[in-house]
């Protein structure tokens, strides 16, 4: 589970010879992101536990004159920590990793653009193209969707299946999931836009997840389907706001109008007409 981290004491870290302020124990990659120092990464998300799978964010740590490679998403800032992000060693290995990604997710524009930014425009490895891949040959198995589903949503609707080169992400037994809320967190965190989701009438279809279908609730005012039913129910159960009633019944658009109308009614005593 996500724990609110208490910021450590202020310290100084050195990235590429320049000093930056950071909090002790802070993840080095997040310091770099804040300071706009470019380090490529695919599996890092600030709200999730460090994972260290994509290996793209590797940097060289300088300790007592010696250099050692480490993933910056698992490296914790400590006073005097010194790292280099673009040494010949890093560039060499990163290029090979990009070549592996280009072969693994040949249909991903995101990977193609990212690799190109680091000078890798082609791969020497055999490209994996699988007909009918539910993730459109774009998945790099960074695990963000799996972790968001379980760590943030607590649903655990999807997970890794098989191991090694046969690993894929999907629902258990490739069956439509009963645990999926249809929240779309997986879609949002996916760095390669591999996951497909579509709203069709009264249902949300998780196209990548074995055709999982999730019922949507209609807006009582305009009739449009706007939120996954189960998700709304579970969110509402935890909400404590005077607007609870409106949220349960109306889509965001109608809710805005409704609230505006209520306000006007309260001020002018009934002169507003329904729009």
């Amino acid at each position: 589970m996500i724990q609110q981290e208490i910021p450590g004491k202020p310290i100084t870290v050195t990235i590429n010879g320049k000093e930056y302020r950071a909090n002790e124990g802070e993840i080095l990659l997040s310091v770099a992101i804040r300071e706009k120092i470019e380090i490529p990464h695919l599996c890092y998300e600030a709200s999730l536990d460090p994972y260290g799978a994509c290996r793209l964010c590797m940097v060289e740590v300088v300790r007592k004159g010696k250099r050692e490679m480490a993933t910056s998403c698992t490296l914790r800032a400590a006073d005097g920590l010194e790292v280099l992000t673009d040494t010949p060693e890093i560039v060499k290995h990163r290029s090979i990793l990009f070549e592996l990604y280009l072969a693994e997710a040949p249909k991903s524009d995101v990977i193609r653009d990212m690799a190109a930014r680091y000078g890798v425009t082609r791969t020497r490895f055999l490209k994996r193209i699988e007909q009918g891949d539910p993730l459109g040959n774009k998945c790099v198995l960074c695990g963000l969707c799996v972790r968001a589903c379980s760590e943030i949503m607590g649903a655990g609707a999807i997970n890794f299946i098989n191991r090694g080169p046969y690993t894929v992400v999907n629902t258990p037994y490739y069956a439509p999931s009963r645990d999926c809320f249809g929240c779309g967190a997986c879609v949002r965190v996916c760095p390669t836009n591999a996951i497909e989701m579509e709203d069709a009438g009264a249902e949300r279809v998780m196209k990548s997840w074995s055709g999982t279908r999730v019922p949507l609730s209609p807006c009582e005012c305009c009739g449009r389907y706007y939120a996954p039913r189960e998700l709304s129910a579970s969110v509402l159960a935890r909400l404590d706001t005077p607007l609870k009633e409106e949220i349960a019944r109306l889509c965001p658009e109608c809710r805005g109008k409704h609230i505006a109308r209520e306000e006007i009614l309260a001020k002018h005593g009934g002169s507003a007409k329904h729009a």
Partner: protein
Amino acid sequence: MRIVSAADMEKVSRSGLRKIRPEKPRIAVGLATCGIAVGGMRVYDRIKEIIGEENPDIELARVGCIGYCREEPLVNITIPGKPLVILHRVTPGDAEEIVRAVEKGEVPVEKALCRIPLWDHITGCTQEYGAGFDGIPRYEDVPFFSHQKKVILRNSGLINPEQIDEYIAIGGYAAALKALSGMAPEAIIDEVEKSGLRGRGGAGFPTGLKWRIARNAEGDRKFVICNADEGDPGAYMNRNEMESDPHMVLEGMLIGAYAIGVSEGLIYIRAEYPLAIRRLQTAIGQAREYGLLGKDIFGTGFSFDIGIATGAGAFVCGESTALVASIEGRTGRPHPRPPRLTDPGGGLFGYPTDLNNVESWCNIPVIISKGSEWYAGIGAKGNSGTKVFSLVGKVDRVGLVEVPLGTSLNTIVFTIGNGGAGNKKVKAVQTGGPSGGCIPARLFDTPVDYESLNRIGSIMGSGGIVVMDEDTDMVDIARYFINFAASESCGKCVPCREGLKHTLLILNKILAKKATKKDLEILSDLTETIVATSLCGLGQTAPNPVLTTLAYFRDEYDALVNP
């Protein structure tokens, strides 16, 4: 009955001794998995049948394995007052003759491998079997045994692993009694540190230091775990240790738990070792009955118990963080370290955890019993003690070989193993399983210790030594190990999951004679990146078979590729 004192121990010991050296002759069949696989159980059943029909005054027992796999099935004959005689290559057809001979106080000499008049079990008991049978070679004159030093396999093949009394009779649990009732935990850790024992799982981390870190870790609940997820192809040292002498593992864990201050222990063992699991379960049950596990052990107030967790068939679960995940019921995927298992939050269910290999635990009773000085006197500087190796592949004398660390590969492969099987020339050995490297015969004067093997691109690993002869295709060997590592990769990080897959594809291309020099370049770049960027030890070491064959047998690659 509960054992609480030396006097209780003595009583059990006498009962055990009557089993090992009964007043009547005893026939004991070597029934570890290896012996059973070559028909040991049939031999046992046939002898049992004859004894059942004729009711001669003979005891029949099961023992573990002394390690000479090539000569199995092995049968021990103990005639009161005479040396223990080991018969080899015994078939059910020999049963009749064996029983007849034993009835007369004799042994079938033509079936005899060797005789043991005297055996030092090291943990405080020297067994004097007796004199006679001078026509049979002595144990120490058998070339396979003469250069070995049995410290870990001190009891294997000589006692019944399903009888705790026999273990106690040869000095078992005496070290635990000594430790728990007479030594401070810190003093035990000091002893283990001074002994110089290093982790036998392969990485060679000092065991005493690991214990100290675990002892000092914050937390009121902690675990000790025995890593019995042995999975290197061709390696079966741990299996035999557990099948032949399970109490030695339990005793080691008991002493360690007391030293670290832990009351909960687990053995994580692969499901592919059903006999080892069964014997451990039996051993745990017997130890509990005697109060050697459970509450208030030896009346000292210290409590400790051991449970068994079985794996589900993944090699990577031998890696510490994946192992813990597997026990917790999660998928066996490693996570970056730190946090290490000994760190708060990093161990089993988040509690600080000490994890040691089976063979590391096996050394503990000896270190406590004989003292660190005695132990440190074995082996080489910085590499004390012995190590059990499984000498397999195209070698003449296949088996488990226990030698002091620092023994050369020459001694292991040629003196003990008698070189290639069928008089073939030995070309190389692979040490350390899929994480190890192929070492060419010209480097066989290398002493087998952690550092020397690293220097030539291989690793000690858990102790597998696979011999290759002149007919072995080294590129194919590399492919074999890469195929193993690729299919055992957990799939979490890219270099291991994708990198090993492509390494395998390139090796296939080379072996199909469809590769060019360019492919060799790609192969070497790719494997370097896998080593440098993989998340856990599996990926970081998996390319070693390719890197070493490229370094030492480049000509075999060159012969297969087009220009």
